[in-house]
């Protein structure tokens, strides 16, 4: 055995050991044993299509959130201007991210523009028109940089809120990531058996407001659309004995006296009739506001509004101090529990919409795995037998490296933390068929060289050196296809691209490098001119 061969064997053994170390933790029979302590922790994670679970694509309505924010910006602008003695009418939000503000006195134009420059530099003046009575009508739009910043911030906060909610809900290994370019969020929740409930929790905006009820408005008129300014018509829901809900109209003041932003904690509790309710704690500032409002509005009704719907509208009996409040609505226990989760986790900065949803039951996942594995075993067995029959000893070499190849693919999946999906499984099976290709190219070349009269040993050397470049060329194009697949693909398709790439790389290593070692070992024991079984 010469020196180069010894080093090649050592290198191969190291790679094999590494491969085994990464594959073993994924085997259930190894996981519980003492051996597992010495192995890496990376396991092959199964995709949702193999394990069961939910995949969601959520669209975040950044535009809506921006409009909401512009309302607040408008109020700020007016307040700041008033402090400086500049009179501005209450600004309005127009469609398409525009804010309209009317300056009452033309001579204050300079002062207003200084305020804008100093404190609202993210607003661009789109138009400035003289109106009747010496007024000036301004239309502002947020600067593109601000819009970009705002979109990023909104998305980040939405991801954080959703993550909080899912953590509270108790899903192991959730995967939540944002797609900045399209204002979308991808959520993957493996192994969940109540998808609908999880979807509801994620999608709830959970925008909590406290608004005063106006009982002086005539309901009949209100329902026809005759509502005094500053009031709005909404519905209050009642849970009926059979678990369904009825809704009744109610008129509230548009302006919220307090919002859910001040909540520090929310819990499910039960009253003396064993009815669930949600108890909330406010932070210091929220507690003070709540105390003041309740003090000012004794004997009036206060509506608790969540996402535009009134949950309950209790009569305030007395000033409430201590920063605690409760939503006594009419819930089922699960509902109260879920409501507490979303209140605790905070509200979403913008409404989200489910754009794509894929739910796979765990039983289907099991079935997919077992069928995939059967196909892989049968397919590989056929290939192994065929190679052995067709090439004899050389076929045995090809078979050995094929097994190593599969081991390395699995190890690669574990080491890179890639997810094995159903198409990924198909990718492995396909790779098994294609993996022998490199060996076939080499063997056919060796056969040609032997026919030309070379000795076995020389033919092996010539065959390998001539075939190597061909194999590299041919496989690189497949890698290009796989890389593009990875770039554009989502979920399962990416899994396929990863396994395909891993398969190609490891098959090149095993077919060019490892199988050569086996030939060299075989030839080194025999006479230089002994015939080769190929």
């Amino acid at each position, binding site marked *: 055995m010469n020196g180069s061969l010894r080093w090649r064997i050592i290198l191969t053994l190291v790679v094999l050991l590494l491969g085994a170390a990464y594959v073993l933790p994924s085997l259930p029979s190894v996981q519980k044993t003492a051996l597992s302590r010495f192995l890496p922790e990376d396991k092959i994670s199964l995709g949702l*299509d193999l394990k069961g679970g939910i995949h969601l694509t959520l669209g975040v309505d950044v535009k809506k959130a921006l409009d909401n924010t512009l309302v607040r910006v408008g109020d700020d602008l007016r307040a700041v201007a008033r402090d400086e003695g500049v009179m501005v009418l209450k600004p309005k939000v127009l469609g398409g991210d525009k804010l309209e503000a009317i300056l009452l006195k033309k001579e204050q134009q300079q002062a207003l523009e200084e305020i804008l420059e100093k404190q609202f530099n993210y607003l661009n003046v789109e138009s400035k028109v003289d109106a009747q009575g010496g007024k000036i009508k301004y239309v502002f739009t947020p600067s593109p940089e601000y819009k970009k910043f705002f979109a990023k911030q909104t998305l980040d906060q939405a991801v954080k809120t959703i993550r909080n909610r899912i953590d509270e809900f108790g899903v192991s290994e959730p995967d939540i990531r944002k797609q900045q370019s399209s204002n979308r969020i991808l959520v993957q929740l493996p192994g969940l058996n109540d998808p609908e409930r999880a979807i509801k929790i994620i999608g709830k905006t959970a925008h909590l407001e406290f608004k005063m009820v106006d009982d002086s408005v005539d309901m009949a008129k209100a329902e026809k659309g005759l509502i005094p300014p500053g009031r709005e018509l909404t519905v209050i829901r009642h849970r009926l004995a059979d678990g369904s809900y009825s809704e009744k109209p109610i008129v509230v003041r548009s302006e919220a006296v307090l919002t859910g932003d001040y909540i520090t904690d929310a819990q499910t509790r039960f009253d003396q009739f064993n009815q669930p309710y949600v108890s909330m704690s406010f932070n210091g500032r929220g507690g003070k506001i709540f105390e003041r409002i309740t003090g000012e509005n004794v004997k009036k009704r206060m509506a608790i509004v969540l996402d535009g719907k009134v949950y309950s509208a209790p009569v305030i009996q007395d000033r409430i101090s201590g920063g605690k409040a409760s939503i006594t609505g009419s819930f089922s226990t699960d509902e109260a529990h879920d409501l507490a989760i979303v209140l605790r986790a905070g509200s979403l900065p913008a409404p989200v919409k489910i754009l794509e*949803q894929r739910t796979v039951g765990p039983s289907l996942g099991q079935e997919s795995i077992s069928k995939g594995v059967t196909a892989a075993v049968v397919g590989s067995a056929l290939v192994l037998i065929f190679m052995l029959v067709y090439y004899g000893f050389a076929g045995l070499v090809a078979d050995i490296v094929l097994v190593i190849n599969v081991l390395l693919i699995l190890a690669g999946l574990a080491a890179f933390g890639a997810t094995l999906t159903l198409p990924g499984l*198909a990718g492995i099976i396909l790779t098994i068929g294609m993996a022998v*290709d490199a060996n076939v190219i080499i063997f056919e070349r060796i056969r040609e060289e032997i026919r030309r009269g070379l000795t076995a040993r020389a033919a092996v050397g010539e065959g390998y050196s001539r075939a190597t470049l*061909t194999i590299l060329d*041919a496989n690189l*194009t497949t890698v*290009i*296809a796989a890389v593009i697949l990875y770039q554009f693909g989502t979920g399962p398709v990416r899994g396929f691209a990863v396994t395909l790439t891993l398969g190609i790389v490891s098959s090149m290593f095993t077919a060019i490098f490892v199988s050569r070692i086996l030939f060299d070992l075989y030839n080194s024991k025999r006479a230089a001119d002994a015939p080769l079984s190929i």
Partner: protein
Amino acid sequence: MGLHIIKPDTRIDFIGSKGKAFILSAVLILLGIGSLMIKGGPKYGIDFAGGMVVQVKFDQQVTVKTLKAALQGVDLPGLVVQSFGQADDNEVLIRTSESGISSSVLRERLNSALKTNLKNTGFDIQRLEMVGPKVGADLRTKAIEALYYAVLLIAIYISGRFEQRWFAAAIMAAVLAGGIFVLQLFGVPTTYLIFAALVITLGCCWYLKLNYALGAIVALIHDVLITVGIFSMLDKEFDLTIIAALLTIIGYSLNDTIIVFDRIRENIRSKTGDNFADSINISINQTLSRTLLTSGTTLLVVIALFVLGGGVIHDFALALLIGIGVGTYSSIFVASPVLIGFGPGSSDAEIPVESA
């Protein structure tokens, strides 16, 4: 010596039969395109068209007809019921073009309809997928883009590797980028843009005499077109996994083509054969065993996948099966003759000579 499927001294005149091969390919492609035109384009699955699909497993046999009757009253537009997987699985797919309702509403509607109309049959909703129209359109654009980028990068790679003409390849990329930019200025939709880009790529390859790239690209477009055509004729749906299959076919077809090209290049350098056509013929014959063996082993596993892999992967395996078959044929009968038609055969002086 082991077995041989192809005798070592085989001399089949592949180039001589290029006329027949051309007719066969043209017929297959035209049939496919005809089928696509009659059916108004590819039949998109919910991945690309948007909509909802529910896979339901019953505890006893339920015919599609009974099920359709049972779901009659359900308010779902474009409702399609089809059996799925093996007959004894008792599984069906229920599709609707609706994507505006929530999955819980859909579950509820199906549950109540099945419970009232199929009283004694137990069932289990195994899979539910919803894709909104916006996401579907995005995925469609991305899929076409992916196919296109694969072709472009491969064209550049082959031109560089086989003809040492990285500069020409760069010109091609530049022309392409310029062309796309101009078309984008006129607001041409992405789908047409991609087709325009493919035509530009082919035109560039032809004009710049990037023959190997031209041959490889013609072969892979051939394979993709035929696979898509056969899928359309079989009334199969296109979804994301089929795109994955098509890209794999592209990779496989090229793999095959390049191995033949590699041998052609080698034989031209060592002046094997009387002329260019003869060199090509010799090269194809020399690599024929390998082509058939590799296709054989790959087909073995794909057939295993097709028969045993289960319903979800069935169409994916079918696409691979067709693609690998066609890819093998095209690397022998399509890619190499293209070299003759436009290639260095017209004047021997143009034979690319370089050191590897």
